[in-house]
């Protein structure tokens, strides 16, 4: 197993795109997208969804920990709220990274692919340099 990643974005497309991009270099890492709002039957609106974030964390949690990356501030608030509702056991395996979403996700995914522990994956996300 390895650390899993959750990609929280206001946009469903961004979350799915980050997953496809990071998956290329980390085929064995579970990458769960939680983008947009999941309400109604129409296309996802722009926003964040407590339920999608919660479900994505469950999907990504294989026991070695989960790193959650977010885009804008309200995605962070949604993610923090979800974390408060996790069982204490699961809660201690989940970290919110303060990272650039796309760049941090790729770096974290590669780190997780290498089998690194949770703290190292968080560090990789937060230390990712932006392009150029």
């Amino acid at each position, binding site marked *: 197993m390895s650390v899993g990643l959750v990609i929280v974005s206001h946009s469903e497309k961004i979350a799915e795109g980050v997953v496809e991009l990071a998956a290329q270099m980390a085929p064995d890492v579970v990458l769960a997208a939680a983008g947009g709002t999941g*309400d109604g039957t129409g296309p996802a609106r*722009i*926003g*964040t*969804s*407590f339920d999608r974030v919660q479900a994505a964390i469950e999907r990504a949690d294989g026991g070695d920990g989960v790193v959650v990356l977010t885009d804008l*501030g*309200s995605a962070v*608030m949604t993610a923090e*709220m979800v974390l408060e509702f996790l069982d204490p056991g699961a809660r201690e395996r989940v970290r919110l990274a303060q990272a650039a979403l796309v760049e941090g996700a790729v770096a974290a995914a590669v780190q997780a692919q290498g089998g690194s522990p949770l703290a190292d994956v968080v560090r990789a996300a937060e230390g990712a340099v932006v392009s150029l």
Partner: protein
Amino acid sequence: MTQPLDARWAVLWIHEAARVVAENRARLIELDRAIGDADHGENMDRGFSAAVAKLDAGEAPGTPAAVLKQVAMTLMSTVGGAAGPLYGTAFLRAATFLGDAEEIDAAAAAGMIGAARDGIVARGKAESGDKTMVDAWTPATDAAATATQSGANASEVLAAAAAAARDGAVATEPLIARKGRASYLGERSAGHRDPGAESTALILQVAAETAGGRVA
């Protein structure tokens, strides 16, 4: 004319909140268009409609806290913007504060508002003057505490809180936003009312009105 602030009142409050939010949907959207992403009215309407639908569907929860907790969970799951975790946390903390009380007295009304405010601050880390809903909740909290100390009843406490929230919302207009999306605008955020402060004022106003109080 005042009515006991029991579970039935809490349900009534949320119904009225949903109605007034729906009525102000376009206005809240316009406020958010100026300094945000033009969805606060939609977010709030969606959340409160869902909260009402949930309350109407099941057996009504037995205490005010149980009503507010259910509303919190529904808002969290349906709002989709910053207002979701913020109001979700606010209603949840209010519920926790109330515990299993059957009825809300003056002190509990003030305490519930303060707990909601503290939840919003914990969640969003905004300070007073950052041009957020905190700038409505904090004066509401202070006014409710003052009213309680001077012997007001519960409905008068809510009326004092609502009046202060309304003033607080208006007073966000000259501020420069330092939290939330509006902070991206920097100085351009001045001259516009904060949408979340406005929705706070609306929701506290119907709290007071449904409790039978007159908002000054």
